[in-house]
């Protein structure tokens, strides 16, 4: 069966009709289209709603019967598309104010359970990020508001609409300003709607506020090109990339897109030997830095000087203007040489929000002729439109009393703005404060009205992340609570009768439909957009605007100061997802720490200060944080992650870590993460940090095998000599070689493509109902992730090379774990899988000991319905995210990666039902499906033409710990670094 991209407008309306009248039948919440009265019982193993259309619950023990009575409650009326037990996929769009991704939403029994990447999107190309994967859990967040709130108490929409409308009218007549503060809005229809809103309330002033703005880049482009835009980058076209504090593989701008592009330029498939090279100059050890071929450590205050030095070297060689610059030690000659060699096929980016720096970056890129090749100004990125000046103006108008009201949409400035106290004080004066926050966040706490917005999975929307690329969002579930989409709120205050759904459709019909030429009828166009989730207009290769040079300058680097470099964590971002337990527990790919932020310091600095890991330090006399020793941290700097220290995020996120937004560097009106000068003092306390790894070097073992490009070209098996040795000794087995009938599932991981972004971890967690265990348990070494991201440093030194390696069950054919289970709970299947029957396991944990890869996980406690583990599996709402095809494991059993056997079985069954052979590439494991780097291949090893066989059929292939002769079905491809030997 083809994957179905449902168009669902009709269905949606129908559902609404059907369920409108049976509210009473539903307990606390209801799921759209499902009339399930939840008869709750304790018999929840494969938890919750295993049965479709009917819910399962235990009522009581029937006198003579041993088993509880289970009820089978059918739908009263079944929507046509809804088949109990069969998943539907809807194309939609993820956009949270910072990050964009085109997605497919997998729904079962009308509830979204998993986010997959949408392979029809030219922007995100089937990739997702960890945050996108985890976003589905936000839908089932207990902290979500159950209805609109007036002065801290729940109220109904009618009253609140009346109140707000009245107040807006008064403010209009009083000619008081009303500030509409939103995150960057990339939805063209919403922008139009806000335009309409401003038209009927002319006193409304719309500002866009980004917690981490990129205004400097826009301003620099305005200065250089006359266009205040963020250009679109093409990392795949660049042969040499130089990054300055830009974590473009992890958090910067469009990490999913950039990861895909980056890995494309470095794939060594099908005999390809060309590979791009990445130089990274940075302060903290970022994910991008960990993937760099050459990494240089610079202090934030040096960045401009180093950039200018680079510019000057390049300018000298190309005969351009040279500007005076302060001297810095950092060597830029190698980078400059490579950049020059790759003129027009290179790219320099900086993530620092500083005008001077961005101007130098532009100058270098211009010098190298990158515009039009690797940088595209004609299709700019629409993200990050916020300008700090707007925010400053708004602040002053609130303070001066010019403003009378404020509306917050998708922003939380009380938490994440630099001058939080001023804002809080100023807000008190305003007579009208409205928040559209979905939860009672820090800002909403201070508002008179909270009009909770729908979750994005409950909303209609559109997006234009990059000019000309449209993306479509449709609801996959009826709003669970009495919430209303922000746009609908605006419409109702406008007095409009129509819903945003209609508004959206009309807008597309009017503004977008005429622009395209593929479809003759709007219905078809509309249907296609909903089905694909994306629509892009043929990119016009417009001429790049001409460059206008400006004078470049750089400040003198500071000396003998301690510079703070704040950074965004891949998991936590700006702190929006603080209440998402999956993300809280996701180990940072570089530090492997979970559930906290901390001060990263370099080993040398630690030695000098006598600091050890977990020692607590005081920063600027107030902020108290533990220390984490981070090899690769630039000398004279410390790093702290933002996004922590929420106070009103919800039960999971409250009080995790410390908020450091107040330490942002504000110079010349731009907010910058880097460069604040701080004072640090050691205290006598310690604070435990929950790291998933306690040892960080490979001890000379051939675990991650690597080579350099030069050697690889000479010999594709370079760096993989161990494998040769192994092949020669392979005959030494007492046992016959394992043979399989038709399928032997295999998985291949290209370590050269894998950036370690850890999206697969969360994808796996969502797919396989992996429990969250909390900080204390992680600290004890009991994290449950079936797929872990191992990270090794070449040395615990100041400038190590970093290796990322995803490790899941290797599905060995000679599995040591199988031999030792006394009760035959883990055996080998006919298809080469190492199968684990949870209900047979008695928990001797012998298999865990005997697994050389240590990929087996034990349920140390009952993680479901246990108040000690108050995460998503302890809440009726949170449990709705569970995949009904996968058993929820009981306390006392061992679990592990199954190669997503439920997906294998599903696709096999589809092929059987369609009376055809299984196609290669049809089965996608959860980790593979959403990998933005396309590093994972899965398929049948017996089929020599399958993608996985082909990728194994290179000199780079090896098995982890192959000398043990466990014969794993998972294989790795050596890492190749593009550097001189």
């Amino acid at each position: 069966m083809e994957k179905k991209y449902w168009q669902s407008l009709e269905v949606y309306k129908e559902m609404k009709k059907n369920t409108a009248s049976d509210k009473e039948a539903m307990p606390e919440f209801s799921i759209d289209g499902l009339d399930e009265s939840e008869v709750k019982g304790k018999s929840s193993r494969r938890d919750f709603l295993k049965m479709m259309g009917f819910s399962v619950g235990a009522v009581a023990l029937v006198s003579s019967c041993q088993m509880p009575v289970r009820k089978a409650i059918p739908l009263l009326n079944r929507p046509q598309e809804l088949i109990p037990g069969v998943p539907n996929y809807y194309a939609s769009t993820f956009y949270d104010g910072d990050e964009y991704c085109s997605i497919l939403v997998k729904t079962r029994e009308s509830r979204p359970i998993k986010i997959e990447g949408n392979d029809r999107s030219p922007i995100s190309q089937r990739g997702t990020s960890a945050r996108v994967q985890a976003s589905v859990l936000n839908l089932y967040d207990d902290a979500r508001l159950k209805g609109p709130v007036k002065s801290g108490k729940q109220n109904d929409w009618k009253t609140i609409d009346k109140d707000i409308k009245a107040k807006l009218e008064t403010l209009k007549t009083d000619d008081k300003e009303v500030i509409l503060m939103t995150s960057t809005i990339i939805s063209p229809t919403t922008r139009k709607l806000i335009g309409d809103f401003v038209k009927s309330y002319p006193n409304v002033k719309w500002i866009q506020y980004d917690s981490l703005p990129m205004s400097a880049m826009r301003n620099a482009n305005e200065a250089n090109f006359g266009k205040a835009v963020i250009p679109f980058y093409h990392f795949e076209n660049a042969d040499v990339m130089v990054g300055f504090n830009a974590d473009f593989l992890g958090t910067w701008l469009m990490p999913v897109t950039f990861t895909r592009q980056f890995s494309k330029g470095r794939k060594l498939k099908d005999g390809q030997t060309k590979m791009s090279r990445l130089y990274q100059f940075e302060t903290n050890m970022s994910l991008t830095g960990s993937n760099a071929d050459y990494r240089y450590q610079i202090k934030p205050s040096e960045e401009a000087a180093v950039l200018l030095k680079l510019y000057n070297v390049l300018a000298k060689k190309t005969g351009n203007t040279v500007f005076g610059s302060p001297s810095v030690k950092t060597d830029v000659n190698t980078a400059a040489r490579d950049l020059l060699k790759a003129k027009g096929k290179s790219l320099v980016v900086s993530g620092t929000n500083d005008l001077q720096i961005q101007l130098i970056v532009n100058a270098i890129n211009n010098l190298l002729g990158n515009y039009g090749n690797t940088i595209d100004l004609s299709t700019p990125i629409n993200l990050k439109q916020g300008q700090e000046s707007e925010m400053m103006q708004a602040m002053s108008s609130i303070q001066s009393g010019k403003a009378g009201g404020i509306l917050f949409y998708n922003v939380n400035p009380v938490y994440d703005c630099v001058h939080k106290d001023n804002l809080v004080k100023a807000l008190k004066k305003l007579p009208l404060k409205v928040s559209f926050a979905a939860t009672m966040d820090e800002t909403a706490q201070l508002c008179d009205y909270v009009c909770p917005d729908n979750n994005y999975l409950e909303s209609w929307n559109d997006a234009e992340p990059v000019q000309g690329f449209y993306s479509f969002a449709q609801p996959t579930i009826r709003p669970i609570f009495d919430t209303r989409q922000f746009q609908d709120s605006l419409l109702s205050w406008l007095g409009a009768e129509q819903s945003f759904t209609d508004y959206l459709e009309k807008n597309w019909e009017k503004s977008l439909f005429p622009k395209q030429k593929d479809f003759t009828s709007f219905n078809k166009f509309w249907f296609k957009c909903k089905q694909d989730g994306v629509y892009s207009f043929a990119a016009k290769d417009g001429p790049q605007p001409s460059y206008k040079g400006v004078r470049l300058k750089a400040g003198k680097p500071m000396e003998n100061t301690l510079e703070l470099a704040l950074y965004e964590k891949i998991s936590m971002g700006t702190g929006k997802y603080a209440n998402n337990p999956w993300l809280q527990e996701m180990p940072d790919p570089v530090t492997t720490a979970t559930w906290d932020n901390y001060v990263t310091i370099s080993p040398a600095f630690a030695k000098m200060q006598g600091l050890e890991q977990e020692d607590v330090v005081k920063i600027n006399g107030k902020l108290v944080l533990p220390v984490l020793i981070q090899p690769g941290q630039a000398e004279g700097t410390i790093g702290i992650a933002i996004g922590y220290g929420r106070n009103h995020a919800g039960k999971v996120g409250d009080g995790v870590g410390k908020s450091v937004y107040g330490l942002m560097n504000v110079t010349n009106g731009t907010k910058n993460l880097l460069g604040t000068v701080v004072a640090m003092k050691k205290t006598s306390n310690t604070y435990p940090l929950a790291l998933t790894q306690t040892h960080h070097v490979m001890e000379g073992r051939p675990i991650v095998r690597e080579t350099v490009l030069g050697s690889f070209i000479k010999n594709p098996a370079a760096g993989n000599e161990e494998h040769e040795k192994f092949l020669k000794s392979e005959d030494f087995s007492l046992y016959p070689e394992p043979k399989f009938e038709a399928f032997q599932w295999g998985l291949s991981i290209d370590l050269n493509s894998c950036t370690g972004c850890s999206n697969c971890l969360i994808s796996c967690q969502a797919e396989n109902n992996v429990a969250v265990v909390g900080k204390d348990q992680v600290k004890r070494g009991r994290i449950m992730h079936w797929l872990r991201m191992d990270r090794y440093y070449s040395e615990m030194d100041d400038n190590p090379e970093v290796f990322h390696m995803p490790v899941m069950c290797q599905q060995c054919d000679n599995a040591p774990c199988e031999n030792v289970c006394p009760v035959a709970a883990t055996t080998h299947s006919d298809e080469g899988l190492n199968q684990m029957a949870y209900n047979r396991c008695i928990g001797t944990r012998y298999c865990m000991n005997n697994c050389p890869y240590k990929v087996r996980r034990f349920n140390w406690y009952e993680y479901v319905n246990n108040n000690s583990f108050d995460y998503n599996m302890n809440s009726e709402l949170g449990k709705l995210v569970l995949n009904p095809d996968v058993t929820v494991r009981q306390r006392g059993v061992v679990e592990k990666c199954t190669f997503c056997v439920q997906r294998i079985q599903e696709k096999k069954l589809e092929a059987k039902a369609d009376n055809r052979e299984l196609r290669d590439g049809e089965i996608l494991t959860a980790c593979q499906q959403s990998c933005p780097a396309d590093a994972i291949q899965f398929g049948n090893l017996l089929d020599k033409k399958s993608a996985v066989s082909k990728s194994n059929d290179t000199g780079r292939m090896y098995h982890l710990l192959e000398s043990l002769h466990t014969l794993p079905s998972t294989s790795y491809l050596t890492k190749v670094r593009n550097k001189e030997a």
Partner: protein
Amino acid sequence: MYNIKARGVLIEGNKRYHDITRDVTNPLLSKTTPTWWWIAAFISSAMLVWGIWGFYNTIVVGTGTWGLNNSVSWGWAIINFVWWIGIGHAGTAFSIFLLVLHQKWRTSINRAAEAMTIFAVMAAGMFPLIHMGRIWDGFFVFPYPNTRGPLWDNFNSPLFWDVMAISTYLTASFLFWYVGMMPDFASIRERTVSKIKKRIYGILSFGWLGSARGWLRFESAALLMGGLTAPLVVSVHSIVAMDFAAGVVPGWHSTIFPPFFVVGAIFSGFAMVLTMMIIVRKVYKYEEYVTQRHLDAIARVLTFVSLIMGVAYISEIFVAWYSDSPYEMFVFFKNRAVGEYSFEFWAMIIFNAIVPQLFWFKKIRKNITIVFIISILINIGMWYERFVIVITSLSKTWLPSTWHGYSPTITEIAIYVGTIGFFVFGILLFLRFLPMMASSELKGILKETSIVTENTENHE
């Protein structure tokens, strides 16, 4: 086995047959229980109660109450299990090996040693049980016909062998022990005046008569059962060793393990016998039966076994070096010798291989206090040996990313203490209610091994 020709006096004090009967049965028949017994029983049952709390906590809350983690998923429970099993080797080793080797000095010790075996194996058996994540499904380990297909067990698993071996060992040891006690029950039955005791011991004695034919069959059956159980002594700990040796964990995967474990078990078992007998002979005034000569014999055995242990340690290290495997070398030279747990490693070496060498000196063998202390040190050393094997190996295996330390929690400690309480309490019950020496065997050797002055005709 080290053959000690303990010629000469094994029973001192001009005992006669009747004296032996009296000495053996009097503690059982006396109506008063000594105060020290009550104190010891109180302490040990308090320990047992704490252990029961540990069990309760583990079963109700989860194995998570222990200090284990995904890398070190066996901890104290397995250490204690192996330790107890080792101690449980002494009884059978005593009775059977020495029986087969015609060592007469076993007679006054073997019954107590066998009792020790029973309680130690029972204490050991608790650990695999409580160690299971789902103890309520523990019956899955037995291959019984079921409605699941039927689904049998994995007969390749050393843990399954363990289940078989230990349950067999416990059964066989118990039966052997019990059969040996039947004549003593009969003599208590005939000696006691209490009706209740007569009834109880009468039932326990199975109607033992002591006829010539009865003795013949008894001896034959006992010898057969003993002979069959003798290889079990070797096999049980070999199989326990295979739990480790069959694993791929560096530090475990070693062919030397089975003999090494068996010797270690006998070592710790004999040491525990020594500890116990020194106490028992003191409180029961059995110095005439358990003589200096007995203790001396045990001490000599310990010296010899300690040398074997030393050789085993050295050969393990040598093999690791000789293998040239970086993983093996890491385990021995980096992880154990100087790593996180080096204290335990060196304690093991010193207590097991070096301290017992003091027994070469006759003076030390004669000094009961020092012998007692050394016997306890050996038991501690043997505990550390299991700690070193289980924990250091698991904490740092193949992939450095998975390395993780381990320290026990209060629950694990409680369970361990609880089993000690159980053991002591069991021994106390044994001392109070069961004949603690085989009177028939003592009587059998009395003539050859005691100094009976010739002028004893008028013994009426």
